[in-house]
């Protein structure tokens, strides 16, 4: 099944993408409205939430180039030292740019 990328077709494709994305935005909350929040569920939610971040970042580091690895390690070190996000992010991005410029 395909949609031809005419003007109407593209609008239809974008509508499909929008609906699918909305389902993901709404779905988790909708499902939770049927769940009683016990301490166990609360604990699940909390560890899951910070695990989302790890599950995004770790494969990103493993699949990334030297610049990506530099960015993430510099961000980590700066953040652990200063506990301030913006300098950590800025240093990370700058080191990715620097590594890619040099190598």
């Amino acid at each position, binding site marked *: *099944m*395909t*949609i*031809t*990328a005419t003007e109407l077709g*593209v*609008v239809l*494709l*974008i*509508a*499909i*993408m*929008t609906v*699918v*994305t*909305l389902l*993901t*935005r*709404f*779905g*988790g*909350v909708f*499902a939770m*409205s049927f769940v009683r*929040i016990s*301490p*166990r569920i609360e*604990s*699940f*939610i909390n*560890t*899951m*939430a*910070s*695990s*989302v*971040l*790890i*599950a995004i*970042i*770790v494969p990103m*580091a493993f*699949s990334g180039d030297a610049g*990506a690895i530099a*960015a*993430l390690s510099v*961000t*980590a070190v700066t953040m652990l030292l200063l*506990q301030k*996000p913006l300098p*950590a*992010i800025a240093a*990370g*991005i*700058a*080191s*990715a*740019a620097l590594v*890619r*410029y040099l190598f």
Partner: protein
Amino acid sequence: MPNHSYPYQLQPRKVRAEFVRLFPISLFVVAFGTAFGLAAIQSGLAPLEAILMSTTVFAGASQFAALELWGKEVPILPLVAVVFAINSRHLLMGASLYPMLKDVSPGKRYSLLLLLTDANWAVSAQEYQNGRRNLEVILGGGLVLWLAWIFGTWLGVYFGGLLQNPKNLGLDMVLGCFLLSMALGGKKSPRVLVSWAVAAVASLAAWKWLPPNTHVVTGALAGGLIGYFWLDKKPAGQASQEAEQS
């Protein structure tokens, strides 16, 4: 039955403050949007179509992935599958905000979710871990990120040539660095560190062996299982066997 009082009141002042607070990161989102706008034009989308997509979909990684499928004919099922897989992390992100979202009316709850994206969610989830309730950042922060994404796409569509290779400037790492800095803020209990290790291993395994784009959900659920079986008050021993299973 749930009771129908909704104690969480969104404070307009705090919403504005969160809009301003996420403004710096939204500048990076503009750059990312510019890269998307340029890529969209190169894939054959018309300028208004690219801007429409950014406005209504508002999920960068999945939009880039959709461009890979773009051509004279676009296959529907692969498009739905890839968009769903990449954005399925929203399911977990939304669920993790439920303890706060249940305290606003359903209308407001689902309106807030329209603006749910990685950066504003990361702030809200992180503050919740540290005992602060902040839905204002979903609204205020989400708005500034959404506007930045649309504005960036517009820039890329018309002036994309200015930013031929955003990777050279490290701009592809903005979100990764931002999320990492969110994760590392504050104190971590042993329970959280164990769940991170499990999430890291599970996400890598999924990335290697499972279908593409399933690694975030797999890793997050594996990490969540640690929390499910290892409550803060209970002795630490229970977590180890669970780590084996996931």
